[in-house]
């Protein structure tokens, strides 16, 4: 089956009323939330755009990124999603709010892996209320027509749209992954939480097929990956490893380890492809 291509869309046109500052420009770990979201999606899909209003195209937090300017009337995230669907017909969109500082590569990869192209969308269930999370979801091209009708009937909430029309719903790999930042208090909490979890320095060694695919036998890198599973997802996206995680074992500090072990600074990690000694 040939799937429609998926592009990434970051919603950054919101008014940020509760924050009283532009959420896209808030700094988390030395980068704007928008740039962090853009880099995250760029590791998983071939093209990424920022959804903006017409009056935001020269905004300094946005102007350096590829943009899709709102081309339909209305309010709320549906305007951005519809504008993207209209700009690239036949493309599905991984739509992401720009204010999800805890979102990991694993959560994005899981969403893409579980995508059901026959549904209108594939979305996570909220860890808070079990309802679909429309702003970290794959929206299929086939949703375009229904979105037009939904808006024409006065609808503007993408979550209610997904509840009404149905979506493929999946559970979050990490309940915190979609915690967002709406108020100055939530922003300072996120900064504090992520600062106690600063980018960690890890040493990675590569062997055999993985050494060849990574183009190196070892490296020291800074990462936010909390577990070997997160780290593999990040590195597989970077180097295009052909082996899936299920085919590998992992060692931390020269002992076999669980994929869900919490990594510590300066841990030495080795991914172990299928062995063939003897």
């Amino acid at each position, binding site marked *: 089956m040939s799937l429609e291509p998926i592009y990434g869309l970051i919603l950054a046109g919101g008014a940020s009323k509760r924050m009283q500052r532009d959420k896209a420009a808030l700094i988390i770990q030395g980068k704007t939330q928008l740039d962090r979201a853009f880099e995250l999606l760029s590791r998983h899909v071939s093209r990424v755009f920022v959804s903006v209003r017409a009056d935001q195209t020269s905004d300094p937090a946005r102007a350096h990124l590829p943009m899709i300017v709102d081309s339909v009337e209305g309010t709320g995230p549906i305007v951005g999603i519809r504008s993207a669907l209209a700009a690239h017909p036949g493309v599905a969109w991984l739509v992401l709010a720009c204010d999800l500082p805890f979102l990991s590569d694993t959560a994005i990869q899981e969403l893409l892996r579980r995508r059901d192209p026959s549904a209108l969308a594939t979305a996570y269930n909220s860890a808070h209320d079990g309802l679909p999370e429309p702003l970290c979801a794959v929206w299929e091209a086939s949703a375009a027509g229904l979105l037009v009708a939904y808006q024409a009937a006065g609808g503007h909430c993408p979550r209610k749209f997904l509840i009404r029309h149905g979506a493929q719903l999946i559970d979050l790999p990490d309940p915190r992954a979609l915690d967002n930042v709406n108020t100055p208090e939530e922003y300072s909490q996120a900064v504090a939480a992520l600062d106690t979890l600063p980018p960690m320095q890890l040493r990675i060694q590569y*062997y055999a*097929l993985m050494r060849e695919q990574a183009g190196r036998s070892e490296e020291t890198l800074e990462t936010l990956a909390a577990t070997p599973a997160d780290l593999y997802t990040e590195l597989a996206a970077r180097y295009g490893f052909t*082996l899936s995680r*299920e085919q590998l074992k992992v*060692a931390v500090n020269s002992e076999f380890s669980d994929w869900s072990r919490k990594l510590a600074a300066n841990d030495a990690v*080795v991914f172990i*492809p299928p062995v*063939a*000694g*003897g």
Partner: protein
Amino acid sequence: MSFRFTQTSIVTESARRELQDLGAGGYVSFEGWVRDQNEGQEVTRLEYEAFQELAVKEGDRIVAEALRRFPVKHALCIHRVGSLDLGDMAVWVGVSSAHRGEAFDACRYIIDEVKHRLPIWKKEHYRSGNSGWVNCERCAVEPQHSHAEHRRAANP
């Protein structure tokens, strides 16, 4: 030290002496050699690569397991790494024991576990000019597929 690596030819004469014991009535060994073909391809040479730090620990554990499970005197395993030619010895296992039965069993246990558990990889170079990491290349083509099959089989 019951498991080790060597970069050069495995010298069985000296390895065998490490197993000598006046209480042993015999000794069993296994030698793994580089074969000239695998799965229909003509092999010209091999490269072995290992994550030695972990492999030595796990290899020692395998030999210790064999000594616990079977009443043998001594056991030793040596694995070669680097570039090997056809006919070269890639791995050697030796076990000395009072009686032959448990020596055969322990030797078989060690080589079987070594093949499955140690982080050692083998790259085959073929007459055709191609090369490939054994157990890594073909299964990488459709990994999702095969796992989905397993899940279906497990949850009909």
